[in-house]
């Protein structure tokens, strides 16, 4: 297994090619490796790197992400070349392959995707293949769906059914920031992923897909598959990508499939999701046909899984297959991997019985399911996430178990009466926070806005307790801003501590809640207030400055001049318009971004869970 060891060295040194050369040259391996080693390096050199210097806070995240992708990619490449060459010598053979790849459906019949959808895609492709010579406008199919429902596989299968070659746009390996710094001396120009993609689209538009790599490209038909759109941050980048895709839709002459993974949750606090939605909409406006894939049904998943079991000659009971199918949440890729993992287990017998005991609760819903998976026995399946509003509802409604008071705490320290609370009827708040994957700040803001509705009219003391905890968590969050925090690990733990304080404070403080009834969760008014505060502040500073020819500090301005001016009815001359507007715009932009991310979350409402 010399190969395996070699891979291990690669992993360590993969961020630095020079280093790698030195290390690996000492190995006795006789295989010339220059042929595959050069390639990733070249790719890496020419590609993207973190964005401009001003945004370096973001770029640190990018750096980490880029590093990770580069790392994984290179690792996989090395692994690929390793395993293919040594297939015979190691003797593991095909059984070590991932089942996901091995049992990839090749014909339309094998697909687990709903027949209608497949048919839809097929007809669309057929149409555009026939008319591809002509000037038909509709060549682009936009396929949207959650992860692992078989979007790309469908395209491949349809293509092979139609006898077309799939030409894929591969995302280039990203550049690491240090690499960029290193290269900047040597005169290599930096290109972002977005730049590359733009170039690619440009090329496709101008020259079509006549490429040397496609042998006999003129004969066979070609389907262009864009699986991996560049990730965009910020409005500007999103706009560029949109323009670029619109051009592509309007002018491309080969059938094209664009895949967008839909992460589902519309109320996710992650604002990059909104960009994807925007892009989808703009693509549709440009004339792309949208086909949205649903999660795969349990039945078709079961069929696919049992087919694989048969092919692999494994004995897996129908119940187990059903369990796996259900746990995967409609994600067939995940289900197959789970199945493979499951079949690896040496002792299937005892573990099976333990699943059976718990399995009914799987049906009840996602939160129970997580509980089930956090148990020691089972470790596959996708943890389903819950929405931010669901989580907030849990925290605000604060359901407790009145039946067994203090049952949980009997062995612990004896608490005073006023500190005693009934046990919670939910998971630990931190687990729920994890599932809701919300950022701390919005969660705290939401709690602050809404918690008073849930406190009994009599219990002003409770209100104070809750408020004081919220104030604590604000303090924790503020400690991040004061120091320009470069230590992300510390930042993360402070964030989660703040969230935990806020949530637990809310749960603890609200000891006399109102009997549960229907409540609408409001969106924090605080955001609007902050927005108008900024605008007013800028406006005022500029106005006053111009009229009085001396500078006053802001406080004086607001507390003395402004009220007086109102009494006097004195109008300030409006000659400060020029820069007033510019500064306003800036602030608005910034805030708009903030607000945008929340806008449609506000429309959601929760009922009594």
């Amino acid at each position, binding site marked *: 297994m010399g190969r395996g060891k070699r891979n291990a060295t690669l992993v360590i040194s993969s961020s630095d090619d020079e280093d790698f050369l030195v290390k690996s040259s000492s190995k006795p391996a006789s295989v010339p490796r220059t042929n595959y080693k050069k390639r990733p390096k070249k790719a890496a050199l020419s590609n993207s790197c973190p964005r401009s210097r*001003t945004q370096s806070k973001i770029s640190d995240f990018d750096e980490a992400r880029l590093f990770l992708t580069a790392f994984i990619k290179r690792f996989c490449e090395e692994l690929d070349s390793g395993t293919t060459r040594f297939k015979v010598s190691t003797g593991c053979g095909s059984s070590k392959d991932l089942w996901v790849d091995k049992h990839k459906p090749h014909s339309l019949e094998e697909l687990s995707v709903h027949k209608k959808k497949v048919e839809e895609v097929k007809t669309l492709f057929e149409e555009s293949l026939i008319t591809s010579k002509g000037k038909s406008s509709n060549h682009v199919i936009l396929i949207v769906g959650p992860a692992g429902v078989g979007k790309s596989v469908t395209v491949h299968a349809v293509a092979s059914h139609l006898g077309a070659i799939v030409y894929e746009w591969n995302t280039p390996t990203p550049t690491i920031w240090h690499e960029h710094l290193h290269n900047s001396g040597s005169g290599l120009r930096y290109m972002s992923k977005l730049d590359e993609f733009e170039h690619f689209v440009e090329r496709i538009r101008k020259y079509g897909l006549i490429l040397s790599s496609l042998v006999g490209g003129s004969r066979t038909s070609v389907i262009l598959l864009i699986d991996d759109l560049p990730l965009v941050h910020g409005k500007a980048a999103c706009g560029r990508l949109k323009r670029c895709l619109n051009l592509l839709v309007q002018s491309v002459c080969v059938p094209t499939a664009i895949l967008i993974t839909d992460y589902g949750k519309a109320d996710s606090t992650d604002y990059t999701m909104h960009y994807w939605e925007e892009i989808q909409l703009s693509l549709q406006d440009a004339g792309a046909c949208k086909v949205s894939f649903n999660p795969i049904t349990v039945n078709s998943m079961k069929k696919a899984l049992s087919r694989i079991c048969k092919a692999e000659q494994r004995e897996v009971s129908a119940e187990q297959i059903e369990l796996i199918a259900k746990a995967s949440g409609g994600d067939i890729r995940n289900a197959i991997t789970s199945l493979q993992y499951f079949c690896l287990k040496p002792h299937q017998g005892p573990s099976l019985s333990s699943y059976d005991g718990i399995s009914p609760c799987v049906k009840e819903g996602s939160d129970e399911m997580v509980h089930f998976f956090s148990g020691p026995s089972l470790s596959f399946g996708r943890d389903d996430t819950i929405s931010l509003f669901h989580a907030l509802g849990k925290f605000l409604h604060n359901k407790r178990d009145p039946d067994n008071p203090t049952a949980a705490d009997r062995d612990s320290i004896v608490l005073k009466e006023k500190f005693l609370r009934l046990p919670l009827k939910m998971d630990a708040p931190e687990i729920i926070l994890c599932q809701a994957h919300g950022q701390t700040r919005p969660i705290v803001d939401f709690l602050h806005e809404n918690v008073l509705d849930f406190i009994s*009219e009599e219990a002003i003391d409770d209100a104070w307790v809750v408020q004081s905890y919220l104030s604590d968590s604000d303090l924790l969050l503020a400690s991040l801003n004061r120091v320009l925090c470069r230590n992300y690990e510390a930042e993360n733990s402070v964030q989660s501590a703040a969230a935990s304080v806020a949530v637990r404070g809310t749960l603890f403080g609200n000891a006399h809640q109102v009997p549960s009834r229907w409540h609408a969760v409001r969106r924090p008014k605080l955001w609007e207030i902050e927005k108008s505060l900024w605008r007013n502040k800028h406006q005022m500073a500029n106005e006053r400055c111009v009229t009085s020819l001396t500078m006053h500090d802001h406080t004086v301005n607001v507390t003395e001049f402004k009220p007086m001016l109102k009494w006097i009815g004195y109008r300030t001359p409006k000659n400060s318009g020029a820069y007033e507007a510019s500064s306003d715009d800036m602030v608005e932009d910034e805030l708009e971004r903030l607000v945008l991310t929340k806008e449609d979350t506000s429309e959601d409402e929760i009922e009594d869970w």
Partner: protein
Amino acid sequence: MLWVDKYRPKTLDKVIVHEDVAQNLKKLVTEQDCPHLLFYGPSGSGKKTLIMALLRQMFGPSTDKVKVENKTWKVDAGSRTIDVELTTLSSSHHVEMNPANAGFQDRYVVQEIIKEMAKNRPIDTKGKKGFKVLVLNEVDKLSREAQHSLRRTMEKYSASCRLILCCNSSSKVTEAVRSRCLNIRISAPAEDKIVKVLEFIGKKEGLQLPSGFAARIAEKSNRSLRRAILLLETCRVQQYPFTHNQAIPPMDWEEYVSEIASDIMKEQSPKRLFQVRGKLYELLSNCIPPEIILKRLLKELLRKLDSELKHEVSYWAAYYEHRMRLGQKAIFHLEAFVAKFMSIYKSFLIATFG
């Protein structure tokens, strides 16, 4: 033009309120080189007026020609460049600005502009190299780092640049900076001085001031000359000729705060707390600084409160004011204070009246 600006004394000789300080300053500038200066005192006591008059004394009437600029500095901070935007007010001899408005980037601004000023220093008529004056407002709001960097630059560029610092409380200015400056305390003007100024303005405007009216305004003004003059002008707009017992209009936000206070006293419940939050939002969105809201609110509450509770309430107000400064979103802490007050007051009511 507002009277506050119109009757601002232009030269040190015309100053009414702090005559002694003005004369001393005049002597200081005419006889010798001017050191760095630090003016401190409550707002509305005439610091800025003195500074402007002093500048005029130093450089002549050309300091009156000022222009307002919204400047952006590109600051190189290690691995990246930061854009800092700030409004400045400048003449050919001085630059005035509020570095605290730049937030936590304030230290870059101070350093950068002082360097810039040092680079192109003016040559005065006698052929020797002159200096420019940098007026920094609200020095007490600068961060520690900024004050620290201020200390360094003060020494380094003292040949080409004089600093005039201006703040409300010198205790928030670091020792190091204070010791490098000539500290000048401008106290709040006494009420009879304010009356004198008001009468002076009245005479200039040709107004009939009934006896005791100026004194009433002075009393209302909290010994802030600025506020007194503003009040006088407001009264003039509202009703003239003045009557003996004319109502002096209060500040609208102060009215609003006392309204909040009476709301709080009337009912203590989460629902009321929510309404109070709405009113606090109203104040905040009108840019009233949260510290001032809290201070005013406390004052209003204490006025209506049983003396038994005053101590405890003040303690909590101080507690939450501290947290407000440390924290990020003021409303959290303001509201927590209100909630705490409600909780204290309610239990007091129950204990007293059952």
